[in-house]
């Protein structure tokens, strides 16, 4: 088990047609298409791997389809690392048990990386940046365009470089990913994201498109609402949505009543 990882560094023996890896990489866009509560991303991973699996030798193919359709749940962008490494292992005809263990070991870390780097850092940061621009008065279409271009430059870079890294390193991808220190960088970036929360709040409080144009009680209420959320944390999110919807509904009912009586 602790023997030297297979598929690390050496070129594969049988040359692949150049389109095969590109096809796997593009199919990675669909890795969550058949998300289900049993195998989660398992079928999506198998579907993405099909161009490589079709080329497996007769005696390997049936078992290969099985092992790649097993449960998997990583992160849609970072799964590209697994797709690259698993392609490499299959092309190099690595030991099937090694492939299964690799697959089981890589899903959690890729999920954690994706959660930290993408969901907890990149998405809120870019969305906050978009919010700053919008509430400062930049036209919505410009903001949305800038947001999509900037965010997807990062997104597609993760997919492309992740796949290349996986293909290059095979089972030895662990130290390589650690060397990039993505988690640490995301963690340090959290300070900047938090600063952006402050900037958005400030722009909304002082700006003419936000609370800044309203009477002072709204300023106090907004400030108070922020502190309530900050102290209460994520448990308060759903009640806030319900209260907001409820307030709109009650006001509409009151308005209807006064229309009827008036």
């Amino acid at each position, binding site marked *: 088990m602790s023997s030297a990882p297979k598929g690390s560094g050496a070129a594969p023996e049988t040359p692949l047609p150049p389109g095969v890896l590109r096809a796997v990489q593009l199919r990675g866009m669909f890795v*969550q*298409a*058949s*998300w*289900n*509560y*049993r195998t989660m991303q*398992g*079928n*999506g991973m*198998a*579907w993405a791997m*099909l161009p490589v699996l*079709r080329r497996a030798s007769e005696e390997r193919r049936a078992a290969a*389809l*099985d092992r790649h359709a097993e449960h998997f749940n990583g992160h*849609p962008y970072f799964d590209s690392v697994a797709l690259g490494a698993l392609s490499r292992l299959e092309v190099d005809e690595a030991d099937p048990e090694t492939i299964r263990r690799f697959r089981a070991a890589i899903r959690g870390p890729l999920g954690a990386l994706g959660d930290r780097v993408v*969901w907890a850092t990149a998405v*809120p940061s870019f*969305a906050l940046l978009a919010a700053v621009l919008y*509430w*400062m008065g930049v036209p*919505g279409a410009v*903001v*949305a365009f800038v947001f*999509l271009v900037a*965010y997807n430059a990062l997104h597609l870079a993760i997919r492309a470089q992740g796949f290349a890294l996986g293909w290059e390193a095979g089972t030895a991808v662990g130290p390589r990913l650690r060397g990039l220190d993505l988690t640490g960088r995301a963690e340090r970036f*959290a300070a900047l994201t*938090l*600063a952006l929360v*402050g*900037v*958005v709040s*400030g722009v*909304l*409080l*002082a*700006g*003419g498109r*936000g*609370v800044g144009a309203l*009477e002072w009680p709204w300023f106090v209420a*907004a400030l108070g*609402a*922020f502190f309530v959320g*900050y*102290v*209460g*944390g*994520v448990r308060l*999110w759903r009640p*806030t949505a319900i*209260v*907001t*919807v409820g307030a*709109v*509904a009650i006001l*509409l009912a009151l*308005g209807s009543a006064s*229309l009827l009586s008036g």
Partner: protein
Amino acid sequence: MTELLGLALLGAWVTLDGVTVGQFMVSRPLVASGLAGLWLGDPATGFLVGAVLELFLLVAVPSGAGRFPEPGPAAVVGAAGAVWAAGPAGLALGVAAALLLGYAGALSQAAQRHLNVRWVPDPAVQPVTEAAIVRGHWSSLGVDAIRGFVLTALGLAAVRMAAPWASGAWPLDAAATRGLLLVGAFVSLGVLGRSLAARHLWVYLAVGAVVGLGLGAVWG
């Protein structure tokens, strides 16, 4: 009819974008609502609803078994409601409808993930074939597109019917409406701040707030 069909198709697209295909973040409220507004000829209203919803949904990311609203179709319906009811009534109706539909989206998404189990092969049960993988893939993808289309269409029908009533009955003026919705959004901003604020980082929050207050006062 073309107008509604276009919106429902947009709803299907942003539903797919959310989880199933690509995740290009076209499903983020600012983008999805904006696109709906553009389609309806009132981009300013679309982007305004989207920007308010974006604040609410900053913490709603699809990590783990997410318990947050599904943003895409909700944002499309929210924009349509805002355009149809117009003015402050539209903004209130749009945001409220989107928050509600977001939960309907999340519930239907969970139901679909149970349903997908039926046609997705599981090697723990029986050997998997290439045909089974392909069938499971396209069936799930197709159902998700249909789910997004139907969800958006139902939401559109609801806000379409509610719009004339809402625009007559809504009692608040533009300023108070915006204040009410932004107070809700500020709770969400606070929640996001809390989730980032490990280890005495609040200094950054404070510095950011000062910068933001300055930016808002000068250009906002």
